[in-house]
């Protein structure tokens, strides 16, 4: 029992250290970035005195370590500061944006997995068949198409030309599920298509190698149906690396897909970052950094747990 506790607390310490490092790096990087929050707020006509006053009021005249410590002090009490731009609490802004990005991320991930996994399994179980070759080449091709092109093409085909779907904008779940889904389809499709190839490639190669294991061969010899072998014996052992990559992807998407969110004008974290970074909204950027890092840390915890679920050898 105590062993479990030690390993848990070690893990927690590691994650805490990651959070600290990330936020510290955030402070440094934000300050390295060009642009002056005072000018973005006060406008280019601001006089040096006005700028100095602004900086003093917001604490930007302090040294970096002091700024960081002050921020950290607030963060520990759940106060991530106030956005320089909107004068609203950073936490509120993040909580407002998170659901959108979260929905996009989850749906995109589910969609690309739902497409990639079965296709990859079928392709792998018929290695070198026409199906396999076409799909594998298509996946490589998809890998090489930038998201911003993919998005534009989708908008033209499914939005403008056919008029099937709204070309941009967002309807929250509160506007009704159907409405929400209509708006979500295009951006999710763009994201899912972009993520599809890596999932596909991963699962395919995993399944190909699992299919060569002795236990699959044994299962075949025992007269079990093909589908059963694929589902029961192949998929689960093949899903470990998928979980790892899926988790990293999840974290990455949660940081906000800037290209997709700005193309579709979605009120998500990506757009928030895109607005905050050039605008040097320091507290907001810090907030995004913390949120993303926290998500990453949580996802890692989930991944560790799911390893144990997927692979009984990792239990105990």
């Amino acid at each position: 029992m105590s062993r479990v506790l030690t390993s848990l607390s070690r893990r927690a310490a590691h994650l805490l250290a990651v959070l600290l490092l990330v936020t510290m790096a955030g402070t440094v990087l934000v300050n390295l970035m060009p642009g002056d929050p005072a000018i973005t707020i006060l406008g280019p006509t601001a006089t040096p005195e006005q700028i100095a006053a602004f900086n003093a009021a917001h604490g930007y005249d302090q040294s970096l370590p002091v700024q960081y410590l002050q921020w950290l002090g607030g963060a520990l009490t759940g106060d991530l500061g106030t956005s320089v731009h909107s004068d609203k609490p950073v936490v509120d802004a993040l909580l407002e944006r998170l659901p959108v990005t979260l929905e996009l991320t989850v749906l995109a991930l589910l969609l690309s997995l739902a497409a990639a996994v079965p296709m990859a399994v079928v392709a792998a179980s018929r290695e070198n068949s026409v199906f396999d070759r076409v799909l594998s080449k298509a996946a490589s091709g998809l890998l090489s198409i930038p998201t911003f092109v993919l998005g534009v093409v989708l908008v033209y085909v499914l939005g403008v030309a056919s008029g099937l779907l709204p070309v941009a904008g967002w309807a929250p779940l509160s506007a009704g599920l159907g409405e929400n889904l209509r708006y979500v389809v295009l951006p999710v499709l763009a994201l899912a298509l972009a993520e599809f190839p890596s999932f596909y490639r991963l699962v395919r190669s995993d399944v190909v190698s699992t299919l060569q294991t002795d236990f699959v061969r044994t299962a075949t010899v025992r007269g079990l149906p093909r589908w059963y072998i694929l589902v029961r014996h192949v998929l689960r052992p093949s899903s470990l690396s998928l979980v790892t990559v899926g988790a990293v992807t999840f974290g990455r998407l949660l940081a906000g897909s800037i290209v997709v969110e700005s193309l579709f004008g979605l009120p998500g974290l990506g757009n928030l970052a895109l607005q905050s970074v050039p605008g040097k909204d320091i507290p907001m950027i810090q907030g995004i950094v913390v949120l993303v890092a926290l998500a990453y840390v949580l996802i890692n915890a989930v991944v560790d747990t799911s390893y144990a679920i997927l692979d009984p050898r990792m239990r105990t």
Partner: protein
Amino acid sequence: MTAIAEAPAAAESGLDRATRAARRGRIAYLLSVGWIGLLLLLAAAADVVSPADPGAPAGPPRLPAFADLGHLLGTDSIGRDVLSRLVHGIRISLVVGLGATAIAVVLGVLCGLLAAYFRGWVETVVNLLTDTMLSFPPLLVLLALAAVLTPGVPTLLLSLGLLFTPTFARLTRAAAMAQMQRDYIAAARSLGASRSRIIFRELLPNSLRPVISYSVVVVALVIVIEGSLSFLGVGVPPPAPSWGAMIASAKDQLHLAPYLMAPPALMIVCTVLAFNTIGDHLRRRISGGSA
């Protein structure tokens, strides 16, 4: 010895399929190597081969490909020769793709090897750094680095290289840790080999397999990402032609001349396919070689 040749038809088709697949694989591999070779050649001789100055106006804007034999692949949105830009773009796209990947591989592999070899606090530090980098919004890194250093190829190399370093560090660490269990490491130790000898002569060559096959994918990713970055103003500054930037600029005139997208996009697709094919081939070769 008669017989084996008279195998039933069904079985024969199985063999045919396998050999056909193998032959196809070989052809695809050769084509891919040929393509990359051609690119390298063109890149080296870009000034000689390209029909026009890639930075100078060569004709009316937005000429489609093959419309004018003087501009085989047409002209871009401000009238520069697309073929010349593509050829010159090889340099940037390949330099950035290969260079950033190389940086990531070198740094990542080094970290991964050290972590796997020393374990203990070295591993803790490496894990901490990789986790930190992985949990950091990449955009911020790119923007900050582009701001501190001026945007350009060296900055891109550095920032994209750093971006992919943690992944390689993880891959290498996992592979190297598996190798550490193997007895040839113990054997080298028992012969009194120094640490650096073990790390670089024994561990390194045997931990590279996943790195090599993944690095190919990364080259492709970097080429594509470089293009997306010009959209944020931190890519290669104009007028340097990179394929990604050419796509980005074609995107802005999609309504006027959608065909402008095709040449650079095809270039990336072919190159990525080629790299992937080579990567798959290498992976097969390497995993076939030692087991």
